[in-house]
């Protein structure tokens, strides 16, 4: 009983992390029509930068949450810079842009290996969240509950941002029809930078708060990128709801798969993707066919 309950909690937690990762991926895809292949790298870099802040290598030690936010901001800046300096040069050439993100992701992976070494770095659970909550016979790890809470808060905040603010309206307009958005005076190219930075920052943040659960190791980027891809193929591109539902589904499938058929954990991910591609190519909540 408690095994299944724990597995469920883990699945929802992982789904929450995936949501933070894939929300940005989905928005970037929706707006710029490219899959950002550095998204896994941003997740990993966020985690590495966070651990560096935590360990006090920068001269002073900081609290876990401050480290996570600082890492997120740095990764956001890196993402925005990459958009401005590299992708902007190739405006309109989607294929070239994708290949550039691929090249950058290979470079980042090697740079991280150089900077932080090949050994996995474990991240301590933040103070006060190491314990468990008891509810009757069931026991919930506190930190995982906190991650779920954070994911929900971010989901609501992102939804409010997209639905209720001027910036959100501009982003939605850009996703729906970039040309018309330009015509009515929205600076779509500036939105690109903002959304790219935002998506990168979210991924970096997710990397750090996922640290106590996943730890940080070389290859983390390659583990996370396909998950983000599958979530977006499943949920549909450019849709926040799609990435939320997709993340939870993939969180469940991945965790249950790993617990029940550990050797085929990656393969079971394949099944929902096949079903969606065959039956509903636009994704569960996507407006446009992939």
């Amino acid at each position, binding site marked *: 009983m408690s095994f299944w309950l724990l597995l469920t909690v883990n699945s929802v937690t992982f789904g929450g992390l995936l949501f933070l990762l894939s929300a940005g991926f989905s928005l970037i895809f929706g707006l710029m*029509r*490219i*899959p950002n*292949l550095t998204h896994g790298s941003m997740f990993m870099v966020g985690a590495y930068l966070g651990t560096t802040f935590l360990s006090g290598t920068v001269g002073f030690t900081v609290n876990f949450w401050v480290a996570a936010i600082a890492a997120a901001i740095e990764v956001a800046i890196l993402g925005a810079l990459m958009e401005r300096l*590299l992708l902007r*040069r*190739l405006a309109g*050439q*989607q*294929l*070239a842009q*994708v*290949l*550039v993100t*691929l*090249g*950058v*992701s*290979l*470079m*980042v*992976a*090697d*740079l991280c290996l*150089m900077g932080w070494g090949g050994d996995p770095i474990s991240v301590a659970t933040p103070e006060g969240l190491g314990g468990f909550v008891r509810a009757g016979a069931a026991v919930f790890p506190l930190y995982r509950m906190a991650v779920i809470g954070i994911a929900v808060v971010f989901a609501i905040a992102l939804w409010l941002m997209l639905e209720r603010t001027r910036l959100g309206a501009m982003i939605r307009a850009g996703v729906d029809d970039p040309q018309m958005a330009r015509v009515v005076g929205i600076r779509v190219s500036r939105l690109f930078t903002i959304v790219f930075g935002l998506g990168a920052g979210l991924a970096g943040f997710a990397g750090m708060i996922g640290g106590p659960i996943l730890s940080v190791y070389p290859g983390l980027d*390659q583990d996370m*990128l*396909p998950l983000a*891809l*599958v979530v*977006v*193929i499943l949920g549909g591109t450019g849709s926040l709801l799609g990435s939320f539902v997709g993340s939870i589904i993939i969180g469940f499938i991945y965790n249950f798969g790993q617990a029940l058929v*550990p*050797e*085929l*954990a*990656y*393969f079971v*991910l*394949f099944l929902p*993707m*096949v079903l969606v*591609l*065959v039956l509903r*190519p636009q994704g569960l909540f996507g407006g446009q*066919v*992939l």
Partner: protein
Amino acid sequence: VNPRWIAIAVAVLALIAVPYAINEPYYVNIASQILLYAIFALGLNILVGYAGLVSLGHAGLLGVAAYATAYLLASGYGHAVAIAAALVVGLLASAVFAALSLRASGISFLMITLALGEIVWGLAYRWISITNGDNGITVSSRPAPFGLSLNSATGFYNATLIIFLLAIAACAIFVHSPFGAALAGTRDQPRRMNALGFHVWMIRFWAFMFSGLLSAIAGILFVYYNQFISPQALALTASAEGLLMVISGGAGTLLGPVIGAALVVIVKNVVSAYVARWNFMLGAIFVAIVVFMPEGLVPGTVRLTRAAWRAANRPKSAPVAEQES
């Protein structure tokens, strides 16, 4: 006699002469590597160059065939059975890849093939009872077709060369056939081709299968060359390397991928000898090529040299003229 045929004959003779000219097993092995990667790149080029479909999962197809060969050999089957089965498995994997990824085209095609390739990688890495996980599978012997041993560097080079020549001839026939023309049509004008009565999906499917067949052949050669296979051969990096071979040489040409394969293999071996940062180099070359010479190295170099030549010889313009422009 057509000069083209003379050029081809000279090139083939030069390729045959390679092991006797360099006569150093290490370099002959690099030549074999170039040829086997050239077969892979030729296969990928059918999709990237002629069908306009950029796949980032092709290392998965190479890997499936390589793993099938290694697994069957390790289970005690003979070379003929292992090779035949690996081709069948490779084609089946290609059919699955094609059926799923051809739901889309353009960037989405790339995304789906990437996800599929990563799933194959995940299987190779985690399905330990079949693939032996990260430790990989060792292949103890090479086949000896018609009693000719492939154990020496030269023997293996000659076998790879024969398969390479067959592959490039097949590609040439494929590209110049009516089917190849139809394929290029689906790349440039899919809707018009559809209106003309061509079955765009089916044309792309068979092109994918041909590409998958070449990838599977390259995979079998790969596993016999290294006598070892591990998940690294299927990683995204490997797919990226393949794509770099195609676009660096020039996609949509027959010789481009071959030159690209030679370039990547040589640079990789040279770089690996001095620094342990091949992946960084690979990424950097990728970015540089895409940003500065997207049409490929050979035409790109020509264009950049011409532009530099013109810039150097341009007469100095008056300040007023500069402001006007």
